[in-house]
């Protein structure tokens, strides 16, 4: 696989408010009835969109054409909790999103997104809140998520972001697709397996 280094992502933003948005909401299970990930993006947040439309108050941002070109998504706390389905980050990425900025993520979602080359960076609650406001009120604002300087820039303000060092290194060095790494020096893997009593036969 070709090495793709990911240093910065820029573009407009899709604001998705709410804590604990679970992967069943990101992509409901009925859309998992397929042997491929193709077309998942058309069902992203589908039930939430429908619910928002029914309430008439406000349409869900994922259903709003203004946000269609977005490449950065802004979320709140514990985003992607629940089911381990990679279908969730797949649907988001296939929708065109290349980086997520939020308060925090579920670990499995974070790992899945990382494996797809989609950084999930975190920022302080007040930063996230300001970014959400900005994306909602001025949807044409350009956002820049920079993993080199560890900042997010939007409008005229630049704020700090965080990303655990291993994930950051993986993006910067283009090793976020772990398979190649795991297959190098395979003798060590056999050595570990041989030392495990349940593999060597007690």
């Amino acid at each position: 696989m070709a090495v793709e280094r990911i240093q910065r992502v820029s573009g407009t933003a899709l604001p998705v408010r709410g804590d604990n948005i679970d992967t069943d909401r990101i992509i409901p299970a009925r859309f998992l009835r397929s042997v491929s990930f193709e077309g998942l993006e058309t069902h992203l947040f589908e039930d939430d969109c429908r619910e928002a439309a029914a309430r008439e108050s406000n349409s869900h941002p994922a259903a709003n054409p203004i946000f269609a070109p977005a490449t950065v998504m802004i979320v709140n706390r514990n985003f992607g909790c629940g089911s381990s389905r990679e279908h969730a980050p797949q649907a988001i990425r296939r929708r065109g999103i290349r980086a997520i900025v939020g308060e925090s993520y579920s670990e499995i979602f974070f790992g899945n997104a990382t494996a797809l080359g989609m950084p999930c960076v975190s920022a302080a609650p007040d930063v996230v809140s300001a970014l959400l406001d900005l994306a909602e009120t001025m949807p044409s604002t350009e956002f820049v998520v920079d993993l080199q300087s560890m900042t997010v820039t939007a409008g005229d303000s630049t704020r700090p972001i965080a990303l655990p060092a291993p994930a950051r290194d993986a993006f910067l060095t283009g090793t976020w697709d772990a398979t190649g790494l795991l297959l190098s020096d395979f003798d060590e893997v056999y050595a570990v397996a041989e030392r495990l009593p349940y593999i060597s036969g007690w």
Partner: protein
Amino acid sequence: MPSTLFQKVWDAHSVRRLPTGQTQLFIGLHLIHEVTSPQAFDMLRARGDRVAFPERTIGTVDHIVPTKNQRRPFIDLKAEEMLSSLERNCREYGVQLLDLQSGQQGIVHVIGPELGLTQPGMTIACGDSHTSTHGAFGAIAFGIGTSQVRDVLASQCLAIEPLKVRRIEVRGRPGAGVYAKDVILTIIRRLGVNGGVGYAYEYGGETIDRMSMDERMTICNMSIEGGARVGYVNPDQKTYDYLQARRFAPHGDAFERAVRWWSSLASDPDAAYDDRVVIDAAEIKPTVTWGINPGESVSVDEAIPADADSEALAFMGVARGQRVSGTPIDVAFIGSCTNGRLSDLREAARLVRGHHVASHVKALVVPGSQSVRAAAEREGLDRVFTDAGFEWRGAGCSMCLAMNDDRLEGTQVCASSSNRNFKGRQGSPTGRTLLMSPAMVAAAAIAGEIVDVRQFSATEAVVGR
């Protein structure tokens, strides 16, 4: 140095530190199913990789199987396509598949333990977040995404970061009518749905020690609902007794040697933890969720709190200050990897024996595996349920996530023994799920509304409405 089971198992499986700072961790057992593996096999094919250790991966089919008519080809063509794809992949790569003909098919987290595949000291991965269930045996087991399923197929390893360990000690003895489900719902409520992010939960204390393996599985199963990717219980005599003579467990002298290794892995008494939490079992009551995540729960006799989230209240159609007991239900579901094992069905059957499901309630029992189903039938539990008006189904995930044709309609309310009450989880975008123990589900099915199982079994006064 004294250490935790987590640390010992982690160290024994560490291959090396990767340049990214992550650990390359060897995975002792890889379980696959039809929903999260087909794309992983496609990625493997695209890379031209083989399966490195085909004998360390085992497949089954659970999420999409119809539980009524299981004749092939399935009437549901998408389900048929997913199962055929799994069959083809297993055949092509030499992976054993426990399919519908095997007599051992079932929910992946039910069959791993009951076949003795799940053993103490293993690292276990599966493309499913409830893989934490297997931690009940003192294994380090976690859910992974499809790209990681590909990694495990290709290399039997994961690139992963270590977790901190939080010891959760449940002291004392819970009262009557309080089940493992109530204990874990209480833990999640106390620590929050994201309280466990970054942690493995080690469960211990008198309550956990006294629990059966089935109950420990219920506890570990829902670790992920508290944000903890891994949950485990140190192995003890109960663990070894459970495993003895299971199909894939070691036999004879090997079993004795295995027990010696397994016991050496339990956390040392003076091991250091990153955090400790103590819960008093006497304070735990039968618990029911009222909201849209598993942390939004109350005891059955308690009012919905004043600070309850408005979005959740609106979705569920409930109000602050309201009690959950007395909430009418439309559907009762007993099953899932949380509570679809034989002991769960026995307890539910004990409560429904001699009663009938309320006339407006659709009630179903979906055993967690074909073995659970067969064992229950040998005890006549199927008759107890069907005489009481429950449907008795084939094994699978069924209405836990509604990927087959068992699903809620419209705004139906379901008393469910499963693990997630997320919006839309049971198949209808507006369907509402109340999580509780299987005994509470059984009582609700009979009464037609949420009732306190302690009163139900004591007086049976609510019967026959």
